[in-house]
């Protein structure tokens, strides 16, 4: 187990910058999730940590050792790939032990580790099968087994769950979390799925366009998104965002075709053009509410109901518990509590604290 530190790491492919200078420190044993839309640089960053790509600039330190110039095999890491990358012509047992055999580990030690990993992941009956005879979930488990038999200092996961169906994905997510709780190995997990990010991570790193937008616990990034991007990316559905103008008292937000919102304290900003964000669950139905929404679509999910509609000409989603008694075509009154408001600068997208 080890710490991981990135110091001003950059990467360009020719003229295109894949990663702007990025610094990040991950303490020993932490489970960190890099999340962002495709093309945000998260996989590039992971591959640089693995040693599969060479950084254009900056230093990567694993356990306080600079690893920039080390081959992937010398970095004491293990990686799980999106398509598993199992060796198709080898039995599961040989897949697990290939790395150990290349390192010249002795037979008894290899057997012990395979036994241990197979027990941990329930692979006992599969050891003599080939990958083609396994289901998706089993292949995923073998890929994880291949990573843990090496007992590396660092686990790297590259979107490992995106090839699985929804049910299996939930199941494997729990397994990965439990595995980390038992092994306590420092882990970097890349995904584009914000649900995976929120549920797995001890800390979430939200990335966009080759740079880190925000780092924090899932609770922090959800409660205090640092930018419009983070606000809209995290949460399903994402945060409702309305264009707003700040009044001269610096505490009133004017929104087109909707009642103005009052902030509890004036904002310390000269900007007038703002964006105000409200989570779908922060809008309460209230007949006397200041806002009126025309319901366009109702999604009943059982435990909760999503109402999609329009406030003025801006789209809005409301999340209500249970089987809410509103339907398409109705108009719903909404109350907004002023603690639930997130305010962002419209030009830069940066959060403005009240």
């Amino acid at each position: 187990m080890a710490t991981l530190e990135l110091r001003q790491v950059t990467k360009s492919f020719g003229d295109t910058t894949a990663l702007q200078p990025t610094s990040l420190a991950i303490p020993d044993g932490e489970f960190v999730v890099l999340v962002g839309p495709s093309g945000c640089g998260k996989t590039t960053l992971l591959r640089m940590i693995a040693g599969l790509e060479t950084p254009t600039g900056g230093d990567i330190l694993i356990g306080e050792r600079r690893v920039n110039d080390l081959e992937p095999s010398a970095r004491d890491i293990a990686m799980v790939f999106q398509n598993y990358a199992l060796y198709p012509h080898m039995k599961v047992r040989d897949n697990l032990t290939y790395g150990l055999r290349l390192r010249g580990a002795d037979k008894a030690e290899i057997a012990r580790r395979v036994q241990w990993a197979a027990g941990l992941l329930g692979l006992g009956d599969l050891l003599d099968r080939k990958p083609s005879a396994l289901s998706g979930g089993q292949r995923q488990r073998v890929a994880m087994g291949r990573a843990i038999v090496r007992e590396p200092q660092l686990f790297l996961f590259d979107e490992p769950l995106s090839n699985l169906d929804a049910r299996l994905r939930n199941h494997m997510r729990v397994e990965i979390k439990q595995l980390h709780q038992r092994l306590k190995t420092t882990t970097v997990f890349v995904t584009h799925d914000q649900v995976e990010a929120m549920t797995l991570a001890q800390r979430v790193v939200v990335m966009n366009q080759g740079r880190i937008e925000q780092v924090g616990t899932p609770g922090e990034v959800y409660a205090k998104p640092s930018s419009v991007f983070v606000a809209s990316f995290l949460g399903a559905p994402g945060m409702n965002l309305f264009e707003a103008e700040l009044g001269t008292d610096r505490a009133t937000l004017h929104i087109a075709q909707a009642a103005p919102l009052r902030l509890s304290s004036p904002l310390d900003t000269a900007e007038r053009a703002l964006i105000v964000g409200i989570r779908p669950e922060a809008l309460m139905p209230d007949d006397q509410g200041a806002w009126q929404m025309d319901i366009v679509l109702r999604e009943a999910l059982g435990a909760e109901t999503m109402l999609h509609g329009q406030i003025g000409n801006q789209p809005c989603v409301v999340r209500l518990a249970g089987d809410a008694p509103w339907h398409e075509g109705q108009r719903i009154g909404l109350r907004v509590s002023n603690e639930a408001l997130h305010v962002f600068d419209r030009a830069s997208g940066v959060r403005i604290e009240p």
Partner: protein
Amino acid sequence: MATIIALPLYLALVAASHAPQALLGHFPLLPGGKLLDNLGEVLGRGLPGTIPVWRMLLNSLIMALGITVGKLTISILSAYAVVYFRFPLRMAAFWLIFFTLMMPIEVRFFPTYQITASLHLLNSYNGLIVPLIASATATFLFRQFFMTLPRSLADAARIDGAGPIRFFIDMVLPLSRTNIAALFVLVFVYGWNQYLWPLLTTTDASYTTIVMGMQGMINAGASFALPRWDLIMSTALLALLPPVIVVLLMQRWFIKGLTDSDK
């Protein structure tokens, strides 16, 4: 369809199994009883004026195997380099290989002959084999196959500590075995059936291959008082045998590979 293909073979079999006199006048419809005698005679002694057919078969076998092994080795290695390594002019190298695909082999015969002659490779096995082992087709096919292997396979092997050579031996070769088997068949038959090149580069009769030998026999056979069609057809049957054996053997191999479904 099968009858049409089988008819010439049947005629060869009938002709090979009679005494030469029986083939004059009316051609017999049924095989005679001299097949083994005729085969034994051509194998052991050959026709008057030629080397024994067993030497021709051996020459052909050496040439065909040399071409096959050489071609597969060279092309799988160059495809591996083109797909897995980044080096200057990599794409230029690939296109250069690809363009030679377009050229008929006969076009480069004279320059190749010139080079072969300057290297003093005429009348040798090397001269028969080496100029024919570069293959754009096989390189291209291997390249296309390597491109279908997921990139992450190489990444995973690299993390497991396999260098380029280990990766080639442990992953690429075993995964290519069905392709190798298929190409082995094609290239062996191609090598076995070479006619023009051996005719150009060998003047010494001891390097006669079976295919060019047969041509010689037909010419020689016509000048005898009694055309030895029995012996010529026996030789033709013998010339047919090795490619057929290779096809049958390898066919079992690559069907097994295909049904293994571990790709």
